[in-house]
């Protein structure tokens, strides 16, 4: 683990498009937390879309290429060993590209052809390790290191940790998970729980940690998404949570938007606050609500955190 710790001290940072738009608060809080923890982020130069939903749905191999280009720049131009992607969609796509390049010669052939056409080095599977923001803090610093840097506390704040689907599924693209004690679990993920517990949060037993939020269908089939989100919000409240901690921009936006829509369309109001885990960690590290972008979330939770003495 010490090798991993050393490797994660300085990583290539791939924010992806969501973190420059709807999830700007995730970007702001991730960078602020990194700074507070002494972990270096170096943004990937001239990064591009990971292929997200749009490209993958039309041509999956083109998505593999787009994700591989990000990893190629990190490996060949920046000489980095690790790419950290806080967005579940980006993280998932880079992991999928890594898997495809290692297992599918046709994908490797397409990536090589397009890379040559674009004039950059072809990414070879294994050149970099793609990690999530949760891995970065959990293994780059560890719980003890985090504890030493706390300036405040989440003070028994009751939190439901919601991981969404792309952090753990499909299982085969995450070979490092389910490796026993210390590794992340795909059926019951716990890294976010572990980190927030160190910061003083009281994690509630939440059975819908990885349940579908209907995120990919939020525009095409809004009612299904609203009902799925509403059930997640109700379950979090029934579990006693005051806050849902998120680590995926798609889930986060969906939860916030459909919380409003559920009240308007179905008359079902819920009060649980929805914030990124980095925003919670940041406040526990002594950062101000503004520094972690609480004001950039859709719903206003500033009053709540002030009342709880956290902000």
């Amino acid at each position, binding site marked *: 683990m010490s090798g991993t710790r050393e490797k994660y001290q300085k990583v290539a940072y791939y924010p992806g498009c969501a973190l420059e738009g709807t999830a700007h608060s995730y970007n702001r809080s991730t960078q602020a937390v990194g700074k507070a923890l002494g972990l270096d982020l170096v943004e990937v130069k001239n990064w591009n879309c990971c292929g997200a*939903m749009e490209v*993958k*749905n*039309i*041509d*999956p*191999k*083109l998505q593999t*290429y787009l994700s591989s280009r990000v990893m190629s720049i990190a490996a060949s131009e920046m000489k980095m060993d690790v790419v950290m992607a806080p967005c579940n969609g980006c993280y*998932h796509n880079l992991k*999928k590209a890594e898997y495809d390049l290692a297992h599918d010669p046709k994908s490797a052939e*397409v990536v090589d*052809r*397009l890379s040559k*056409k674009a004039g950059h080095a072809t990414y070879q599977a294994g050149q970099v390790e793609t990690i999530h923001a949760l891995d970065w803090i959990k293994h780059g610093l560890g719980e003890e290191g985090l504890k030493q840097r706390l300036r405040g506390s989440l003070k028994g704040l009751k939190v439901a940790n919601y991981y*969404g*689907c*792309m952090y753990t*599924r*499909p299982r085969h*693209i995450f070979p490092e998970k389910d490796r026993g004690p210390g590794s992340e679990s795909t*059926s*019951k993920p716990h890294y976010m729980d572990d980190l927030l517990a160190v910061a003083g949060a009281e994690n509630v*037993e939440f*059975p*819908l*940690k*990885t*349940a*579908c939020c*209907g*995120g*990919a*269908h939020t525009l*095409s*089939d809004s009612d*299904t998404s609203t*009902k*799925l989100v509403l*059930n*997640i919000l*109700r*379950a979090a409240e*029934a*579990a006693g949570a005051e806050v849902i901690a998120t680590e995926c921009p798609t889930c986060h936006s969906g939860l916030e938007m459909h919380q409003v829509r559920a009240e308007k369309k179905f008359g079902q109001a819920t009060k649980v606050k929805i914030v990124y885990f980095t925003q919670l960690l940041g406040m526990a590290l002594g950062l101000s609500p503004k520094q972690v972008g609480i004001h950039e979330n859709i719903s206003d939770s500033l009053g709540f955190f002030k009342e709880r003495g956290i902000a």
Partner: protein
Amino acid sequence: MRPLAAIEQRLETLAALAKPGPEVAPELLALGEEVLEHWVAARGLEPTRDRREGFRLLALHRQGCTDEPSFNACRETCRELVYYYNLVNLEPQHADAVQRLRMMALVANHLFLFVAGKLQVRELGDFCCASRPLRQEATPPDSA
């Protein structure tokens, strides 16, 4: 097999109970099985009577995943349903039994919402959980 609307109504009734008793647990489990029966039947298969790890629900889920990896999106939901069933069944008089039943009802409801949603929009879960393109059947362009 009851219509989905009837299952939905019954789930709402059970989820709204202020103090559900332990007899609700097998009913919630059975409702989960009925939901999965709908999915399996809609794919032209005979819903299995087999059990997996002691539960028909898990066998039905497995059957529902055949050639449909995105159905794994509700795998953990099914397992959570079984988990709460076991908790209540093993300790029906436990101090947390009511809370466990309330959570079990919400988990069963999530299973219903996902499967009912997927019956309307088959691709639900394809993009994310199966990492599969939504237009897989269409001929992909030649990657430039």
